[in-house]
C-alpha cells in the first residue's frame, strides 16, 4: 500500500466534480460551481444564476483519533516499514443560490448515493456517511431583495495512510554490575 493523503483543496475538487456530474453541467455551467475562499477573492454572480459554492475541512470526531500501525520487516533497506493509517472525518458545506437552488439541493443530496459516485469516492478512499441532514432553506437578504439559498452539509470518512521507516536493533551490549553500582562482573555483546 502506498501513502494516501488528500488535502482540503483536493477533497473540495473531488466533491465539486461529482456535483457537476450530478447536475449534468456543461463546461460553461461548471464555472458556476466554485470553491470558497480564493486568496484574491472572486467576482460575484446574479440573482438569476444557479450557483454552487463548496468548502470542505476536517472536523473533530472520535474516529479521527484512532490510529493503526503495521510494521513489516524489509531486507533492503534493513529496517521495518511502518504504515500508519487513520480516518479523517471531512465536512463539506454546499451552498446553493438561484431559482433552481431547491431542486439542485435535492439532486445533490440524492446523487451522492448513486453507485457511480460512490465508486469515484472509494477510488480516493473517501466514503460518505449516509446519515445526511436535509437541505436547509436560508434565503439571503441583499440590498432590498431576498436571494434564494439552500445549504447542505455532507460528511465523509477519508482514509489517510502514511509511511515511515523504523530502524531495527542490530546489536546490544548488556553489562552486569555487582550490587548497586558496583564493579562490573561481565559484559555480554549481542550482535547478528
Amino acid at each position, binding site marked *: 500500500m502506498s501513502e494516501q493523503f488528500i488535502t482540503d483543496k483536493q477533497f473540495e*475538487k473531488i466533491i465539486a466534480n461529482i456535483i457537476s456530474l450530478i447536475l449534468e453541467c456543461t463546461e460553461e455551467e461548471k464555472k458556476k460551481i*466554485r470553491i470558497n475562499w480564493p486568496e484574491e477573492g*472572486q467576482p460575484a454572480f446574479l440573482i438569476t444564476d444557479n450557483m454552487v459554492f463548496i468548502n470542505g475541512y476536517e472536523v473533530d470526531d472520535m474516529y479521527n483519533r484512532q490510529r493503526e500501525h503495521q510494521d513489516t520487516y524489509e531486507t533492503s533497506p534493513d529496517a521495518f516499514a511502518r504504515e500508519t493509517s487513520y480516518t479523517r472525518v471531512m465536512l463539506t458545506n454546499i451552498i446553493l443560490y438561484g431559482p433552481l437552488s431547491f431542486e439542485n439541493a435535492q439532486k445533490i443530496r440524492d446523487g451522492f448515493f448513486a453507485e457511480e459516485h460512490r465508486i469515484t469516492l472509494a477510488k480516493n478512499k473517501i466514503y460518505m456517511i449516509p446519515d445526511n441532514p436535509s437541505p436547509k432553506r436560508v434565503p439571503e437578504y441583499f440590498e432590498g431583495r431576498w436571494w434564494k439559498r439552500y445549504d447542505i452539509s455532507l460528511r465523509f470518512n477519508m482514509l489517510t495512510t502514511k509511511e515511515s521507516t523504523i530502524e531495527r536493533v542490530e546489536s546490544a551490549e548488556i553489562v552486569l554490575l555487582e550490587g548497586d553500582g558496583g564493579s562490573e562482573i561481565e559484559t555480554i555483546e549481542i550482535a547478528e
Partner: protein
Amino acid sequence: MVFQLKRVIKNRHMNQSFTVYRSSGDWVDFEWVENTPEVLTITGIISIASEKEMENLDFADRVKGAIVIHSIEKLNITRDDGTEKGTSDKVVWRGEEYKVKSSSPYADYGYYKSIAVRIKGN
C-alpha cells in the same frame, strides 16, 4: 454645463503618476484563476483615507491603512459583466500595495474617486 473637476486632477502641480495592476481571470477546475495582471500607469491625486494603524492581535501586530485616489481614469473593483471579469485593481503608491475597495463614479463631473486599502499586513 456641469463644471468639470478633471482640470483640477490634471493639474501637474497636484497630481502624480502611479502603477496599477489590473487583474482578469476565469474559473478553471472550480477555482478562480488570475491571469498575469495588466500593468498601467495612471495619473491622479492621492491622499490619505485612513492613516497607517496597528492592530494588536494575539498572533501579531497587523498594520492597515487606506488611500483615496482621484483620477480621470476609472479604477476597477471586482467585476463580472459577462465579457470582462477580474478582481479589484491594485495600486502601488510609495512602494506599498493597495487594493481598491470602493469606487465613486463621478464621471459626470469628469473624474472617479476610489478608496484602496493597504494589503501587505505587516
